[in-house]
């Protein structure tokens, strides 16, 4: 961290210096090159025009062969220190007049003048210029000048280096200022971030000093820290909340478990109680039924004896009363028989075996038809339906359902009875359908209760025990029984004989 901070500072510093140095180097190089090229161009132009002037001034000297005048003209070049030597050549190429800036130097002049041209040899510029008057070459001017390219290069280099030095000092100061203005706040934020990471103190905030990107950075940093703080609090809160919820749920589960255990215990208790009560009830009803039969038989028997032995002492009304008493006693006997049957069903042993239900339905219907020869019965029985069930109990159930079918369609011209298997709301169920009077569906739930009757016993005699018996039998098989009907539309009884397979 310490190193990174150091590095950022160094990088800014190095960046400023590098930028300055490279900009200066590039600009300086361009300026020097341009300067040198300018110098060359300038000195050549300068020397050319100087030579032309000299040529023009010396034309009369050449024309009138005045060497002294030529020398005098050349001597004027003293005013131009960079011209080291000069000469004028006559048209035939002979030296006409000469000039040396330093008389002691005895460097040779070119023997023959050159054409209009210049050449640079080291730090010397040699230049020839023809003198033309009236379209004729009247002579040639030669100039030897100091070509100070090295001097200028040196000058420029010194200038550039000193400029660079000054610029470096300024840029160093600038970079120090930048450190204070730019990297300072950034480093402060970095230190703050480090501190926050170490101390986990999210209440700390960066100080915003400027309105620029660094200020934005400080703002963003503060927002970030605030967000972290907020989300950390949020997380803590939600974690606490979750903890609490978990605790609640655990408590609730414990409670449920406790209640379940309690419930189970209670159910067991109740079941035991119920079983006990049921057994008592069964024993009671059996004994009641059994014990009630004797007095009933006595009532019926003595009523019959009265009718037979004292028929002459009784008027029609008395006979009628006795008839009523007898039929009531007989009905009660039947009721007791049915009740006994019902309780027997409960107590009967239960053995499953393969039963051909279709054949059993045929048999039962045969018996019923024999008992009611006045009824025309049309059967429609799906053959070959077999079921693993208790044959005696199922026969009782079928007798009840088919008996009802015969009974409630007795007033039709023709009784139509159908037996088969049908898929009813996903359950494959047996059904027995008749074309009897039917019933209203709102009474469907009362159908299977004991002593519950939907029709008056005057129209359709019965004890109201039959369908209760059927339900008891079906339940002992683990199956279900229900019915569908509408008034005058016949009714359909559905039943299954095994527990519904869990899907």
């Amino acid at each position: 961290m310490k190193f990174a901070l150091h590095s950022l500072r160094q990088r800014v510093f190095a960046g400023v210096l590098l930028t300055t140095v490279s900009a200066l180097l590039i600009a300086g190089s361009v300026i020097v090159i341009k300067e040198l090229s300018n110098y060359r161009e300038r000195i050549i132009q300068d020397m050319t025009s100087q030579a032309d002037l000299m040529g023009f001034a010396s034309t009369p000297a050449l024309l009138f062969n005045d060497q002294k005048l030529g020398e005098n003209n050349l001597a004027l070049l003293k005013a131009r220190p960079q011209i080291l030597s000069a000469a004028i050549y006559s048209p035939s190429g002979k030296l006409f007049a000469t000039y040396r800036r330093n008389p002691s130097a005895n460097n040779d002049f070119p023997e023959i003048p050159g054409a209009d041209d210049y050449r640079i040899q080291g730090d010397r510029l040699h230049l020839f210029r023809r003198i033309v008057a009236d379209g004729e070459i009247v002579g040639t001017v030669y100039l030897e000048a100091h070509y100070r390219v090295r001097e200028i290069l040196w000058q420029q280099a010194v200038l550039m280096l000193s400029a660079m030095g000054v610029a470096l000092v300024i840029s160093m100061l600038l970079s120090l200022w930048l450190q204070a203005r730019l990297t300072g706040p950034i480093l402060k934020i970095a230190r703050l971030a480090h501190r926050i990471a170490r101390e986990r103190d999210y209440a700390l905030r960066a100080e915003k000093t400027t309105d620029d990107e660094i200020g934005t950075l400080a703002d963003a940093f503060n927002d970030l820290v605030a967000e972290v703080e907020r989300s950390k609090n949020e997380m803590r809160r939600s974690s606490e909340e979750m903890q609490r919820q978990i605790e609640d749920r655990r408590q609730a589960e414990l409670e449920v478990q406790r209640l379940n255990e309690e419930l189970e215990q209670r159910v067991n208790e109740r079941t035991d109680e119920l079983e006990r009560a049921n057994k008592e009830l069964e024993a009671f009803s059996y004994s009641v039924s059994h014990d009630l039969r004797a007095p009933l038989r006595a009532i019926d028997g003595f009523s019959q004896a009265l009718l037979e032995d004292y028929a002459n002492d009784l008027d029609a009304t008395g006979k009628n009363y006795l008839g009523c008493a007898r039929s009531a006693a007989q009905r009660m006997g039947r009721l007791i028989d049915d009740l006994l049957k019902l309780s027997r069903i409960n107590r009967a042993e239960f053995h499953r075996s393969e039963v051909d239900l279709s054949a059993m339905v045929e048999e039962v219907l045969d018996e019923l038809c024999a008992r009611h020869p006045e009824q025309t019965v049309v059967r429609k029985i799906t053959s070959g339906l077999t079921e693993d069930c208790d044959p005696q109990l199922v026969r009782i159930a079928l007798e009840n359902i088919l008996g009802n079918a015969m009974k409630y369609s007795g007033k039709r011209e023709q009784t139509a009875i159908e037996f088969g298997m049908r898929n009813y709301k996903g359950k494959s169920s047996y059904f027995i359908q008749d074309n009897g009077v039917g019933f209203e569906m709102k009474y469907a739930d009362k159908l299977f209760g004991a002593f519950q009757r939907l029709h008056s016993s005057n129209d359709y005699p019965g004890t109201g025990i039959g369908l209760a018996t059927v339900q008891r039998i079906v339940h002992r098989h683990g199956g279900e029984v229900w019915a569908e009907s509408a008034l005058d539309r016949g009714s359909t009884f559905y039943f299954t004989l095994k527990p519904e397979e869990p899907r």
Partner: protein
Amino acid sequence: MLRAFMRVLALGLLLLLWAGLLVPGLPANAAETIDETIDETAIETRIKAAFIRHFCTYINWPDSAFEKADSPIVLGVMGSGAMAEALRAVVGNRTAHNRPMVVREIDPGDALGELHVLFIANSMRTRIPTLAAAAIEQSVLPISESPRGLEAGSAINFTVEDDKVKFDIAPAVVRNAGLDVSAQLLTVARVIRQESSR
């Protein structure tokens, strides 16, 4: 003396070469065989002729001195057939002020009106005052080669000093003739007479 002679000889040859003119049939080493005096005079004449030609460059005549824009500058020579010949050789097809130059030999008493330059040879030195005065009257530049020529009224006068041809010029006289003289010419002239002769 020999060195001086050789120098003049070289200069003369040089001038001849420069003028693009070589005497036809004259061998390159002919100078050595020619009589010294005669030779020296001929060379002097040729140098003077060349000088006269160059004067035309540095002297400006008014436009009224010419009939047309391309009318020639007429160089009159009096009293020296050699000079007329030398001038013709020097002038050739050359021009001054974009005008061709023609050489005409003049006899005493001839009209000077068509001339622009009048050379009065030393043989005619007694006539200089009248000729010069007449020439100046008619915008003709009088040139002489006699001692005290300028005092006699000439505008330019040749002299020979140290075996070199020099000339004196009197700008006032030139201006009296209605002509302009270039300052450049004055730089070459050996003596400049500023005072007017009149």
